[in-house]
């Protein structure tokens, strides 16, 4: 669905995006992670033809961007950074304007607008101007914009920005529903938890470079070590000599082939076990190991 090759953007002397090769497949929920200032938004803008790449190529839905934007973009729904709307018009009027700019005929317009408003939870919205909307309502309206025209690909930049926990949950369900219906979703975010709950594949950007791109399941699969929490750390350590890879205050990391055997051995020897589980890396561990702090952190020095 999205494939880039050597995508690079340079602003003056600053390399914002550096030689990025993305591969988003049909049916993915692709989590695009990166610290603030890592080049996520610039990449998204290049995919949509808003920013022109310094070098490299981008293909969206199998066609070159931005050359074939006219054919590609009608099939793409986008929310780029913050939602944008005419402040003096109502949410419904804004959607009507955008629908009129798309391919849809006039006859079904009201129905299409009501449909997307319902989907994002603004079905009962009145004719108040958007200027009076709360941040969460604007965000929902932005999502409604993106959903107009049943896009095959959704490109969403921080879609849950400004929503309360209830709203975040709702939007997550909406995205999962769309995904189940066959929509491919490219989700850019710096919220690890959000990506971990939604994504099937993950790409991580660090200072403009794509440092990780893999299935979420692969990234967070068991490491092969076993996490053992016990009150008798020293006895367990002596017992398992040679297999212990890490000793903590109240836990050990052990490399064994058979966890059931390990458990039996510990019990037989009277070691009091509080927890025994395969060690898993969280997405946070993976991302933190691969990246440095975001550009909003400025050290003295």
């Amino acid at each position, binding site marked *: 669905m999205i494939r880039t090759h050597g995508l690079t953007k340079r602003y003056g002397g600053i390399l914002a995006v550096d030689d990025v090769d993305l591969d988003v497949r049909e049916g993915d929920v692709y989590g695009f992670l990166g610290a603030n200032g890592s080049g996520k938004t610039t990449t998204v*803008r290049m995919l949509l033809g808003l920013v022109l790449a310094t070098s490299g190529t981008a293909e969206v839905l199998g066609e070159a961007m931005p050359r074939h934007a006219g054919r590609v973009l009608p099939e793409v729904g986008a929310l780029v950074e913050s939602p944008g709307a005419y402040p003096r018009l109502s949410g419904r009027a804004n959607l009507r304007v955008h629908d009129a700019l798309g391919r849809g005929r006039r006859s079904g317009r009201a129905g299409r607008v009501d449909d997307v408003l319902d989907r994002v939870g603004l079905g009962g919205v009145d004719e108040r101007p958007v200027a009076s909307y709360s941040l969460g309502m604007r965000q929902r309206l932005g999502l409604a914009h993106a959903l107009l025209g049943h896009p095959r690909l959704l490109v969403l930049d921080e879609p849950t920005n400004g929503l309360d926990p209830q709203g975040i949950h709702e939007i997550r369900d909406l995205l999962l529903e769309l995904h189940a219906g066959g929509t491919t979703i490219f989700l850019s975010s710096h919220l690890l938890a959000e990506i971990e709950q939604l994504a099937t594949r993950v790409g991580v950007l660090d200072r403009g470079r794509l440092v990780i791109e893999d299935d979420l399941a692969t990234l967070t699969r068991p490491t092969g070590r076993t996490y053992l929490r016990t009150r008798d750390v020293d006895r367990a350590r002596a017992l398992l000599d040679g297999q212990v890879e890490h000793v903590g205050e109240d836990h050990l990391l052990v490399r064994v082939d058979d966890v059931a055997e390990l458990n039996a051995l510990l019990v037989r020897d009277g070691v009091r076990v509080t927890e025994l589980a395969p060690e898993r890396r969280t997405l946070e561990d993976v991302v933190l190991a691969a990246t440095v702090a975001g550009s909003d952190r400025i050290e003295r020095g």
Partner: protein
Amino acid sequence: MIAVELHQLLRSRRTWVTILMIDSLPTLVAVLLGVTEVGPRPGTGPAFLSAVLTDGTLFPLAAIAIVLPLFMPIAVSIVAGESIAGEAQQGTLRYLLVRPVARTRLLVAKLVSVMVFVLLTLAVVAATAYVTGTLLLGDAPVAATTTVSGTTLTQQELILRTLLALAYAMLSMFGVASIALCLSTFVDAPLGAALGTLAVLVASTLLLTLDAADSIAPYLLTRYWLAFVDLFRDPILWRDVVRGALLQVVYVAVFLGIAWANFATKDVKD
């Protein structure tokens, strides 16, 4: 895109308030002239104003001469200056472009919308001025109108020449609109584009009063704006009108060219 743009223009309350405000000045002038019957001495004051006391049908032209040097350019600068920069500031520009609306088409739609605004304003000003002129001011000859040169014009000729004058005024405003649109593709704030355009106008007007700037005077934007008065001489004095029209065409071509070249390759980051 053009239809949507026009719909937005005509729906906007601001459009009509602006037109009303522009229209109020010539109307006020008509009322004052009608009440006091004191016109400027021939040869002084805005064009046609001395003639309208005897012939109210010339007042639409006087009204255009009143609004053209200042009111119209300010309104056009603001409307055209807002076209691209305003969308960028509201955060709607990127959503228009990903809908997608092709960049060139967006530029054309904005330009058409500005020119419709100009046409609308001039039409309202001329129509109001015709009504106030015939009601409040002199209505001496019914069949024939006196030209600036003293000869008479038939009704038909008067209408034709008035339309020509309106077209000329529109072309003059087209030049202003092009500059404002061009600046609008460069800056992030609509006010910047509007004020930049006004700066060009003020500079042009100022240089025209300076004898030392005589050599560049024929190329200044505002030099021939009021040349449409020459359309009401007998015979018509074409020289300045033609020069003015050509000059505006050059300004329009240059600034729209720059606007297009810049906008078509611009990184949309706001």
